[in-house]
């Protein structure tokens, strides 16, 4: 980043009560209540900019974001864009747009129904179509490569899943999943419970700049740093035991500039938590994923945005002073976004 950065904060966050199965709702029907909720919370009906994140492949049809506009109420027409990425990257685009200085508010949302398809197989289609996808390497298989490379201890992973599921049971929006049990492997060294559950859901966030943020929220969650970085796609070109791009993004976002009370990490597999903790330099006393994290509810394309929302919520409700949010995209944590949220700008 160069030059002056405009103060921007999360002023509202809402998410669906996520489900582990299809409830028969179309995407706009999932979205409408959460968008209504952030509109009510802020009293805003129109926003300077709107940006969303979703993935056509979840529904197996093009333009999933088109019908989602019905939930926004884009009439009269709105200034709007969409990323074929997690909603956290839509939030980044909106944060950038707010830096221009001519608008003061932005609506961001993400949504996904992974119940409608086989996410494990779909994620294979994200790989290089010439050299990697034909190998049939599915999402859990390549995650297992990373888990093996990281050499995470079974007891550590079990405890991460136990804690995440317990926190998830205490979170009214997350799934109710039992304590992990069973000795069988999904793909060695990962057990079925190391894999984030199939989840349908949506989330929405409102960003506001400067004094507008102070008007809209008692304790705005100021984004004091936000950055993202990509790594090479080919797994063989990376040290899978580390997340260099998370470390770089964390440095650019200023994670290490102060103590961290809580971190919400986009961990779609249990072994990613120690990798991300190390990359972000989070000490053992930092509370990670008090919401339960993606291991307790993983609505694909909203799960990263929910990390930002959950981190912001703890600033908004006064339970934390400085929080870190992380979102990821691509195989084996290829691309990572890190945001720092604080009580003062």
């Amino acid at each position, binding site marked *: *980043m*160069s*030059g*002056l950065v405009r103060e921007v904060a999360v002023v509202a966050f809402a998410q669906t009560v996520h489900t582990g199965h299809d409830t*028969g*709702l*179309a995407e706009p029907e999932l979205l409408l209540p959460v968008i209504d909720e952030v509109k009510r919370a802020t009293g805003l009906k129109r926003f300077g900019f709107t940006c969303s994140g979703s*993935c*056509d*492949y979840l529904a*197996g*049809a*093009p*333009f*999933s*974001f*088109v*019908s989602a*506009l*019905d939930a926004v109420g*884009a*009439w*009269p*027409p*709105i*200034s*709007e*864009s*969409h*990323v*074929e*990425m997690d909603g956290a*990257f839509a939030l*980044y*685009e909106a944060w950038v*747009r707010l*830096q*221009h*200085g*001519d608008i003061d508010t932005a609506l961001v949302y993400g949504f996904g129904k992974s119940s*409608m398809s086989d996410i494990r197989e*779909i994620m294979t*289609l*994200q790989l*290089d*179509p010439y050299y990697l*996808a034909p190998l049939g390497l599915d999402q859990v298989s390549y995650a297992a490569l990373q888990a093996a490379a990281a050499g995470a201890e079974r007891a550590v992973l079990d405890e991460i899943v136990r804690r995440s599921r317990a926190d998830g049971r205490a979170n009214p929006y997350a799934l109710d999943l039992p304590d992990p049990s069973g000795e069988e492997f999904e793909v060695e060294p990962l057990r079925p419970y190391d894999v984030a559950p199939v989840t349908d859901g949506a989330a929405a966030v409102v960003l506001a700049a400067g004094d507008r943020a102070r008007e809209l929220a008692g304790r705005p969650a100021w984004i004091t740093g936000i*950055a*993202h*970085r*990509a*790594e*090479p*796609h*080919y797994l063989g070109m990376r040290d899978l035991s580390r997340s260099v*791009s998370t470390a770089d993004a964390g440095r650019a976002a200023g994670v290490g500039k102060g103590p961290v009370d809580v971190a919400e990490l986009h961990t779609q597999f249990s072994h990613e938590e120690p990798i991300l903790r190390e990359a972000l330099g989070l000490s053992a006393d930092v509370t990670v994923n008090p919401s339960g994290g993606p291991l307790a509810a993983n609505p694909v394309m909203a799960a990263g945005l929910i990390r930002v929302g959950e981190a912001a919520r703890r600033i908004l409700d006064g339970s934390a002073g400085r929080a870190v949010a992380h979102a990821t*995209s*691509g195989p084996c944590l*290829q*691309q990572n976004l890190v945001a720092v949220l604080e009580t003062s700008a």
Partner: protein
Amino acid sequence: MGNRCAVIGVGQTRYQTRRRDVSLAGLVREAALRALEDAGLTFADIDAVVIGKAPDLFEGVMMPEAYLADALGAAGKPVMRVHTAGSVGGSTALVGASLVQAGVHGRVLVVAFEKQSESNATWALTTHLPFNASLVVGAGGYFAPHIREYMRRSGAPDHVGTLVAVKDRLNALKNPYAHLRIPGINREMVESTPMLWEPIRYLETCPSSDGACAMVLAAEDKVTGTPAWIHGTAMRSEPITVAGRDVVSPRAGRDCAADVYRQAGVTDPRREIDVAEVYVPFSWYEPMWLENLGFAAEGEGWKLTEAGCTALDGDTPWNASGGVLSSNPIGASGLIRFAEAALQVRGMAGEHQVEGARLALGHAYGGGAQFFAMWIVGSSKP
């Protein structure tokens, strides 16, 4: 609008039915390297990469930006992937420009592509979401009724679409990158082709192309070479169905144009904009957008087309490059419009250069004529 931003490099691939000689990565890299060469830069000079394309179903690769990061020199950098339907190429340019205008980055590479030979676009556009009704078969089936309604309202004679089809293909003969370069193209040839969706004949539609387009965008202190300065940027979206929506002249298009004209200080677009690259995938969209964009009064757009005003030697040239009717790698088509606008004001459009072009409009639309992206670029600083 934030900090000043300029286009300092443009790169295009030759657009054609099939590029069997390159992978997806090879295709985007070809355009990116040409844009970097134009700017006198290398990948090392780029701070961030923005990738745009239309539905991933076209190539069967989900979120291909992850795979394409390597070919675009993006490792260690931020990568964004934009998808706003047919307007995505334009939106990709705007997201890239936004990063510079925000002061976040000094130089951004934007790349958009489609390799439509990997699938059948009409059918890729026809599958529908679970729990939603399927409304259309392909784009032509969706837009033809809107065109018929335009003809009814305006009383435009039947041959106006043919004139656009000929004019844009004549321009394409002057553009070495254009896909459809048809020697001897004329009205008889267009009128002899089969009717696909009344009133759209085969030669009144865009082709299905493989191709990529890239641009290097720079902050004022990072400008190299010949800049095209951004004078205004705007996006607008409206729902595909809402009571009172006018699908013939969508309000989102009018609002978007008004916004970008206000930023650029344009009050009379036909007089003040020297050349426009406008997303015309079906011939009749030229007169329709002439009205929607305020170049002509309502019901009068077809008269400009008929009088030759939009020809390369007319008083308000539209699609000097040959436009979408001549080259259509869908995800890139919007970015090509934005890039061709930049080439014109840089004086680098070659044989299809509009003499003395100083201010140009780049336009893209998508979805059910509901997503709009526009920019105005100029040879001088805003």
